């Protein structure tokens, strides 16, 4: 705990107000075990809250992996689509219909669907196939080996090197496989921004080859990817698409729709919410109770200050400072611990889906502020009620 002593220079006051705050700090860290208990309560609560919400964010990011990786500005789909994986094919004529909307710079079809590969070893492996528009290859991944032109070669597929890559038996360029009695060959290895949610590898090919290799229903377009001429045209495109009976969403809106589906129409959101709420309650209980005990144990010190001549608002300031100090410190340590845990987990578990985003941090900070506020409220009430007279009575 030498660091506590080393921090003295940090709190070395330069103004009278800081002098009072320094006394508050010294009171706070006086009983180190209590201080550590207080800190641990908040660290634990922050860790759990950030961990839970980060896992949810990670899962949501993976659920929207195709949307992120393809990167189209506007997506046209059937209004009943809930997630990117559960596509409802669009009639081919919608492509011409969308292309004719004023403000559309270009529109291309995208195929997205599941298939079963038979690998060289004879093992079967489920994969996600993404079929890119043959003429433009809009949404193509970033190749790390191979040539993008080779995607037009016979039987060509590009394998995505993500956490699921090993399930394809770590293919190289030239590795072949079977897909519905068709031969497929890996012609390139690529990287994408986000891995998928369902633990299956992803292969990219051309739109027409995807239709040729995978049995399809009457309608074949999974999504239409639209590039507006300018951001101002998006509103009109949405309106025109809606008039045609379909739904046009920006990338962010589509991701939000997917997120909303998992959050509100599956048990996932409720479970995460419950765990986050439990973390909050646990943190509030531990920290609130420890802080209250701390106030009780230092009540006579506050009383002595009051008897000497400290005013009520100065005592309130001391308590608010103590609660804020321990909360901010606990918050920082909790976030750091969570980041470390996620980093270590990802080193050993490539499929581990957790990502810390600003929204999680703000949420946890908000909850810590509530914990600090409630703890302070209890402390302030207690300290304001104390009569210096009690100090004389011992």
């Amino acid at each position, binding site marked *: 705990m030498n660091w506590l002593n080393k921090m003295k220079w940090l709190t070395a006051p330069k103004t*009278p107000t800081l002098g*009072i705050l320094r*006394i508050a700090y010294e009171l706070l860290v006086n009983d180190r075990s209590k201080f550590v208990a207080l800190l641990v309560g908040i660290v634990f609560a922050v860790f759990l809250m950030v961990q839970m919400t980060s896992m949810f964010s990670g899962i949501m990011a993976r659920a929207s992996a195709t949307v992120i990786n393809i990167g189209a500005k506007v997506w046209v789909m059937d209004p009943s689509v809930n997630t990117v994986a559960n596509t409802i094919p669009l009639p081919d004529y919608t492509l011409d219909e969308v292309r004719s909307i004023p403000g559309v710079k270009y529109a291309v079809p995208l195929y997205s669907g599941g298939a079963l590969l038979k690998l060289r070893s004879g093992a079967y492996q489920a994969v996600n196939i993404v079929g890119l528009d043959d003429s433009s290859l809009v949404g193509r991944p970033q190749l790390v080996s191979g040539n993008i032109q080779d995607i037009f070669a016979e039987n060509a597929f590009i394998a995505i090197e993500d956490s699921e890559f090993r399930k394809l038996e770590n293919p190289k360029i030239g590795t072949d496989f079977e897909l519905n009695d068709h031969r497929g060959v890996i012609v390139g290895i690529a990287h994408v921004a986000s891995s998928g949610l369902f633990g299956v590898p992803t292969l990219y090919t051309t739109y027409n080859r995807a239709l040729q290799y995978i049995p399809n229903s009457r309608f074949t377009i999974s999504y239409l990817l639209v590039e507006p001429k300018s951001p101002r045209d998006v509103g009109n495109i949405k309106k025109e698409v809606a008039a045609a009976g379909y739904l046009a969403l920006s990338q962010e809106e589509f991701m939000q729709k997917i997120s909303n589906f998992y959050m509100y129409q599956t048990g996932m959101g409720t479970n995460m919410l419950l765990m986050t709420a439990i973390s909050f309650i646990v943190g509030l209980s531990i920290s609130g109770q420890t802080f209250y005990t701390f106030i009780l144990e230092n009540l006579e010190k506050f009383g002595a200050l009051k*008897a000497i*001549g400290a005013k*009520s608002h100065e005592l309130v300031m001391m308590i608010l400072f103590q609660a804020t100090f321990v909360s901010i410190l606990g918050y920082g340590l909790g976030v750091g611990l969570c980041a470390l845990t996620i980093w270590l987990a990802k080193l050993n578990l490539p499929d581990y889906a957790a990502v810390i985003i600003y929204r999680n941090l703000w949420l946890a900070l908000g909850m810590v502020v509530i914990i600090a506020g409630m703890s302070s409220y209890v402390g302030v009430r207690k300290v304001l009620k104390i009569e210096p*007279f009690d100090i*004389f*009575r011992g």
Partner: protein
Amino acid sequence: MPAIAIEASGLTKWFGADETKTIAVRDFSFQANFGEMLFVVGPSGSGKTTLLSMISGILRPNSGTVKIEDVEIWSLSSNDIADFRLRKIGFVFQDYHLFPRLTTAENVAIPLILQGRKWDEAIEEGRKNLEIVGLKNRADLPPVKLSGGEQQRVAIARAIVSRPDIMIFDEPTASLDGDTGRSIVAFVRDSLLNEKRSIILVTHDDRILSFADRTLNMQDGRIVSIQQAKAHEE
């Protein structure tokens, strides 16, 4: 005729109500003079501490007035009373109430810090006051490294650091052995009492009564006797 430091008139304080009502101090009037060391003695529950709290602006009486240097303290706002205590009254508590993580010099400086003095200036002043109580070489130690008598001296240094006109001692020898207790009170009388200061001391300790100029003997919230001391040796 010595100047009057504290003039209390008709002080009454009770706690509780109806059947649980207890009258701690009844219609109590007295004066404390500058240059005087006034002891308040009496059995437990006689109202000494309640009286001490009322005359020092800590506990509001149910009736009666307290004038300190012609200021009727209970007519002031609570913030003004706090400020009055901070600048005019020095307290020495029975249990010292020192802050264990602060050095002794920092402990002594607390009233000055509360007055808004800069930290370094306040600590320097704290060191000077530790010198007065004979603890110059203990300035940078935490209070827990000091003996009981030394801690009491630190508490005294803290009480005098803002140069108060009134000093209030609550059972200052209760936690000390006889010799240390006597030496502390002797020091207070010899070094801190002067014609611009009045010292009021509540005690149970018969061994130190000889240091008093006057002794108020309380029982059931009333004065039962006032003893004027013989002239003290210089």
